[in-house]
C-alpha cells in the first residue's frame, strides 16, 4: 500500500512540476518560514498596547495577507456555493472575511501575553503542508495548533487551522451547512444570520 502510494505521489509530483509550480507551495521549509513570520506579526499585534480599533485593523491586514480568505470561505460554504447566486457569493465572501476578523478581535483580551513556538514536525500532505505550533498563554495549558498552508498562485497562504485535532474549516462548514439546511436550503438565510452576528459583535466592541 505504502510503496504504491509513494509511487503515485512521485508520478503526481512530476506531473505537477511539469505543469504548474504546484510543488512550490508544498515546500515545508517555505511554509514553516511563512508561519513563523506571520505568527510573529500576529503575536506582536495582539500583544501591543494600541487601542482595540487600531489593533483590529492591524490584525485584519495580517489576516488578509496571510489567509486565503476567499478559498477558505468557498470551502466552508461547500456544496451551497454553487447554489448561491453571484450576488450572494460576493456578499458571502465579504461577510465571511468580516466574521473572521471580528471573531478574532472579540477575543483580544484572551490572547494577551500569547506566545507561540514551532512544533517538532512539519508534514506534507497531498497539496498542503501542515506546520505544527504550540500556543502558550499565561495560566493556561499550552495547546497544539496546526496550520495548513497551501499554495495560492505561487504564494503560501493559510487554508486551515487545526486546534487539538479539530479543524476550523470543517467545523465551520458543518455549522454553516446546518444553518442553511434548517432554513430550507436558503443561502440567503445564512447571509442574514452572518449579518446579524457581525452587528452583535460590533455592538459588543462598541463600534
Amino acid at each position: 500500500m505504502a510503496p504504491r502510494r509513494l509511487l503515485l505521489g512521485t508520478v503526481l509530483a512530476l506531473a505537477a512540476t511539469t505543469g504548474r509550480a504546484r510543488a512550490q507551495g508544498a515546500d515545508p521549509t517555505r511554509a514553516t518560514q511563512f508561519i513563523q513570520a506571520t505568527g510573529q506579526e500576529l503575536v506582536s499585534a495582539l500583544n501591543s498596547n494600541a487601542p482595540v480599533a487600531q489593533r483590529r485593523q492591524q490584525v485584519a491586514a495580517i489576516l488578509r495577507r496571510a489567509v486565503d480568505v476567499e478559498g477558505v470561505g468557498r470551502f466552508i460554504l461547500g456544496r451551497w456555493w454553487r447554489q448561491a447566486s453571484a450576488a450572494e457569493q460576493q456578499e458571502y465572501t465579504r461577510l465571511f472575511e468580516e466574521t473572521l476578523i471580528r471573531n478574532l478581535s472579540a477575543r483580544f483580551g484572551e490572547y494577551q501575553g500569547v506566545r507561540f513556538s514551532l512544533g517538532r514536525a512539519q508534514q506534507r500532505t497531498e497539496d498542503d503542508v501542515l506546520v505544527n505550533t504550540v500556543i502558550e498563554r499565561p495560566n493556561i495549558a499550552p495547546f497544539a495548533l496546526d496550520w495548513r498552508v497551501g499554495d495560492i498562485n505561487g504564494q503560501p497562504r493559510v487554508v486551515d487551522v487545526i486546534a487539538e485535532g479539530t479543524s476550523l474549516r470543517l467545523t465551520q462548514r458543518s455549522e454553516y451547512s446546518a444553518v442553511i439546511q434548517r432554513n430550507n436550503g436558503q443561502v440567503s438565510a445564512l447571509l442574514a444570520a452572518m449579518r446579524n452576528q457581525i452587528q452583535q459583535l460590533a455592538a459588543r466592541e462598541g463600534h
Partner: protein
Amino acid sequence: MRFKPSILLLAALLPAFGACATRPPADDPESLAEFRQTNDPIEPFNRGSYAVHQAIDRNVLAPVARAYRDGVPEPVRLGVRNALANLRTPVILANDILQGEPRRAGDTLGRFVVNSTLGVGGIFDVAGNRLGVRGHTEDFGQTFARWGIGEGPYLFIPVIGPSNPRDLTGFGLGIAADPLIWLGQGTTVDVLTYSRTGATVVDTREELLDPIDAVERSSLDSYATLRSAYRQRRRAEIENRTGGGTPSGFGTGFGVGPGEPSAPSRR
C-alpha cells in the same frame, strides 16, 4: 459485525426516539453524502436533548462553575483538578493496557504511584511538573474504537454532552470499573462517590467556561459546531494525536482527561 454493540445499545434506547431526521432523497447524492457524513440520523431528538441541556446549563451548571471560579483561589482549584485526575488514573491505566500501549501504561502507573505519595494524594502533579511525565486521556470508548468498533449514530445527552452509543457505553463502563465503587457500600462510600461526582462536574464545567462561551458567541448553530468538534476531537484522541490536557471529565462528553496542564505531545 463491526457495529454490533452499538446497535444493541441503540435498540435499547430506540423507544425514546420519537423523531428521526428526514433522509435526503436518493436523487440528491450531495446532500445524501452530507447526511451520512454528519452521522446524526436522530437529529431532532438530539436537538431536543441539547435544548434541555442548555436550560440545565444556564440555570445550574454554568452559574455554579462561575461561582466556583470566582470564590475559590486558583491554587486550590488546581489541587482539586489534580486530585480528581489522579482518581481517574486507574481507569486510564486499564485502557492503556487494553489498547496494548505499554509505554503509555507505564507513564500512567508511574504518575499514579508518584502523585499519590509525593503528590499528597494527587493534589500536586509531581510526576508532570518535576519528572516531566505528562498525563494523557484514555477511556473505554477509545479502547472500543481501537478494537474496531464503530461509533454508531451521534447522540447528545443532557449533562453528559455529545456522545454516541460506543462512547456512552464506554462512559458507563468507566464508572463501573472505577476502584472507588469496589470499596463496598455504606454511607461513607456513598458520600465519597457523590462528592467526587459533584466535584468532577463543577471542575470540568469551570475548565470549559471560556471555550463554551466562545462557541456560543461565535457560532450560528452551536449544536452543529459541538457535534463536528466532538467527532473530530474524538478521532484525534483515539489516534492519540492530542496533547491530552483540556477538556476532561464529564458534563461535556469530551472524554475523561488527566485534567492537568500537559504539554502537547505528538506521535
